[in-house]
C-alpha cells in the first residue's frame, strides 16, 4: 500500500466518515494522482472499456444461466441418453455443469484481463 496514506479533506461524499480514517487516492479529486487524466480521451477510452466489460459480463451470465438452469429443465429427456452408465440429465447436474463453471471462470479471468490490457487499464 506504498506508504502514501494521505489524510485530510478528501471531498468525500459521506461526511460522516472521519477524514482521518478514509482518504481518496489523493488529497483532492482535481489534483494529481489518478484523477489527473480526466480528459475527454480517457473518458472515451473508459467508456469503451466498460462497454466491452459489460458485454463480456452478459456473455458469461448467459453461459452461467444455460448451464445452471436451462439444460436442467430438460433433465427427464436427457436422462434417456446413457453414457458409461450415467443418464445424461443426472450427469449434467452432478458433473457437467460444474466442469463448465470451472472452465468458464478461467476463461473469464483471461478475457477480462485481455480487455483491461487492450484499454490500458490493467495493472502492471
Amino acid at each position: 500500500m506504498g506508504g502514501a496514506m494521505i489524510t485530510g479533506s478528501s471531498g468525500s461524499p459521506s461526511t460522516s466518515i472521519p477524514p482521518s480514517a478514509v482518504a481518496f487516492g489523493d488529497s483532492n479529486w482535481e489534483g494529481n494522482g489518478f484523477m489527473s487524466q480526466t480528459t475527454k480521451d480517457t473518458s472515451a477510452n473508459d467508456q469503451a472499456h466498460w462497454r466491452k466489460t459489460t458485454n463480456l459480463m452478459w456473455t458469461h451470465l448467459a453461459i452461467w444461466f444455460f448451464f445452471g438452469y436451462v439444460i436442467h429443465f430438460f433433465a427427464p429427456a436427457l436422462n434417456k441418453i446413457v453414457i458409461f452408465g450415467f443418464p445424461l440429465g443426472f450427469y449434467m447436474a452432478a458433473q457437467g455443469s460444474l466442469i463448465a463453471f470451472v472452465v468458464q471462470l478461467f476463461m473469464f479471468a483471461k478475457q477480462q484481463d485481455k480487455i483491461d490490457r487492450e484499454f490500458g487499464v490493467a495493472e502492471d
Partner: protein
Amino acid sequence: MATQTSNDGGFLNNLGKIYGLYTGGFLAFVVFLAILEMMGVPNRVLGYLFVFFTIAVYAIIGVLSRTAEVSEYYVAGRKVPALYNGMATGADWMSAASFVGMAGTLFLLGYDGLAWVLGWTGGYVLVSVLVGPYLRKFGAYTVPDFMSFRFGGNFARMLAVIVLVCCSFTYVTAQIFGTGIIASRFLGMQFEVAVFVGLAGILLCSMLGGMRAVTWTQIAQYIVLIVAYLTPIVILSTKKYGIPIPELTYGQAIADITAREAQMLKDGLATAANLKPHIQPWINYTQLNFFAIVLCMMVGTASLPHILMRYFTTPSVREARQSVAWSLFFIFLLYFSAPAYAAFSKLEVYTNIIGRPVAEIRPWMFQWGELGLIQICGKNAATLQAVIDACKAVAGHPGVVRLQDFVINTDVIVLSTPEIAGLPYVISGLVAAGGLAAALSTADGLLLAIANALSHDVYYKMINPNAPTVKRLTVARILLIVVAVAAAATAATRPADILAMVGWAFSLAMAGNFPALVMGIWWKRATTAGAIAGIIGGFGIAIMYLVVTRYFPGFGVAYLGMSSLTNAAGAPLVDLAKAMAAPNAMDSWVAASHPMASKVGWFGLTNIAAGMIGMPVGFALIYIVSLMTKEPSKEMQAFVDEIRKPRGRTVLQEK
C-alpha cells in the same frame, strides 16, 4: 511495513515448497498411524492422535502467523497468491455440511439433492463476473466498508453489519455444532465438551493473526480435507471397478442402482410409494423449489461476506479473478465426488441390506446403530440380536429387510464408507480429521467476518475513530472470543433448526446484500436512499417470510394469504382447513413438529428460498427510489468509474 515484507518474502516465495513438505508430512503421519494400527494400538488412541495432531498443526500455524499490523490482521496484507487464496476459499467454503452432509443428502434425495451441488458451485461465476474483483479494487477491509462508502455513510454501514451478523452467526453456530458431532462420534467425548474443544481449536487458529493466520491455516486444512475426502472413495473405486477414478466409475453404480430399484419393486421389497428412483428429477422437491434453491444458493454465494472478504486478500484485481477460478476448481474436486459416495453407499444398502435375510445383514452398521444413526424395523441396529428381535416384533414381517424397515441418518454415508469398503480404521480416522478440518476452517472464516465487522465497522468506524492500532486489534481479538463463545454456547443447546438455518443464511445474504452490491458497482445512478430502501425492503421481506412461515404459520395463513406448499405430485402438504381449525393453529414460535411449520407460503415456495422473494423487491426498490432521488454526486460517479478499472491505487486507503 518494509521489514515485514522482506520477512514474509522468504515465506511467500517458498509457498509451494512449504505446503508440499506439509502434505508429505501429513501423508507420512497417516502411514505412521497405519503402522501403529497394525501393531495393535487401539482405535480410540488412533482417533485421538489424528484429531489432536491436526489441531496442533493448525494452532502452530496460527501462532506463527500472529501479527500486530492492521492490514495483516484484516486482509492478510493483500499478498496471498491466487492459487493459495483459492485453496483457502475452498476450505472457508466447504463446511461440515458439505463434507459430511452433502453425500448423505444425495443418497436420500437422488437427483433432487443435486440442487445443492449446483447451487453451491455456480455462484462463483457471479462472484467473479459481478462483484468480487470490484470490491478488491475498492480496497475495503469488510463488505460494510463498501456499503458505507458508496451509500452515504454509517446508516448503510449499520444495515450491512446487521445483514452480515444475521447470516453469519447462524452459519457459524452450525459449524461449531458440526465440530461437536464429529468429535463426539470419533473420540467418544460428550457433545457439550466436544463443542468447547472445537472452539479452542478455532480460536487458536484465528485470534492472534486474524485473516493472515486464518488464510495460512485454511490452506493446511484444505489439504487435509481433500485428501481425507478422496482417499476412501478412490480405494473403493479401485477395489470394485479397477479404476481409481470414482467420478467415472460410479456411472456403473448408478446403472446398477436403477436395475436394482426395478428388481426391489418386483420382489415386493419396496413399494412405488416409498421408493424414490435415484436419477428421477423433481420427486422430492417440486420443480419450482428445485430451481429456486439452486438460484438462492448461487446468489447467496456471491453475497456472503465471509466469502467475498477472501478476495480482498489477493495482491491484485487480476489475481482476484484468477483466484475465484481456483476456488471453484478446489471446491469442484470435492463436490463432483460427493455423488459417487452417495451412489456407492446406496448400491451397498440396496444390495447388501435390503433383501437380505435379517440374520445375515452386514456387521459394519452395528457401530452406527449403537449411536442411533441406523435403524432397522424401528429400533437401533446395535447388534444382530437387536435387529432380529425388532423385526420379529413387526407384524407380518417376511424375515427379509425391506426398504421401509431401513432408516439411516445422512451423516453416516461419508463416515461409514471406509468400513463398507473394508478399509482399516486409520482411514476412518482420516475422514474424521477431514470433517473436522472442514468445520474448523469454515467456522474460522465466519467468526472472523463477524468479529471484523464488529471491531472495524462498529467500534472503529462508528464508536471510536481515533483508536490507536493496538487498541483496535485488542478490541478485534476480544470480540472474536466473545462471538465464538456465544456461538459455542448456542450450539451446545442443540437448536432444532440448525441445518435449515444454513440454507436460510444464503437466502438472507442474497436478499440483503446482492441488490445493493451489484447496483452499487454496475449502476452509477443508484443512490443512497435507493440502496437503503432496497436493503431494508429486500432483507425485511425475506426475514419476514422466513419467520412467519416457520414460526407463525397460522398468522401467515389467516392474514397474509399464505397457502399450503405442495409435494412434487401437486398435493398439498397439509390440509389447511383442518390445521386452521385445530386449537394450536394460531400458536406462535411453534416447534418444527407443528403441522404447519415451514409447510405454508406464497407461490408454493419453500422458506429456504426466501431470497427469491426478497431479492426482486430489493432490486425494484433500489431502482425506483434511486430514480426518484437526486443522482449521486460527480465525485461518487468518478469513484464508481475508478473501481471499474483495475489500474491504479485502491479507492479506499485504510490505515
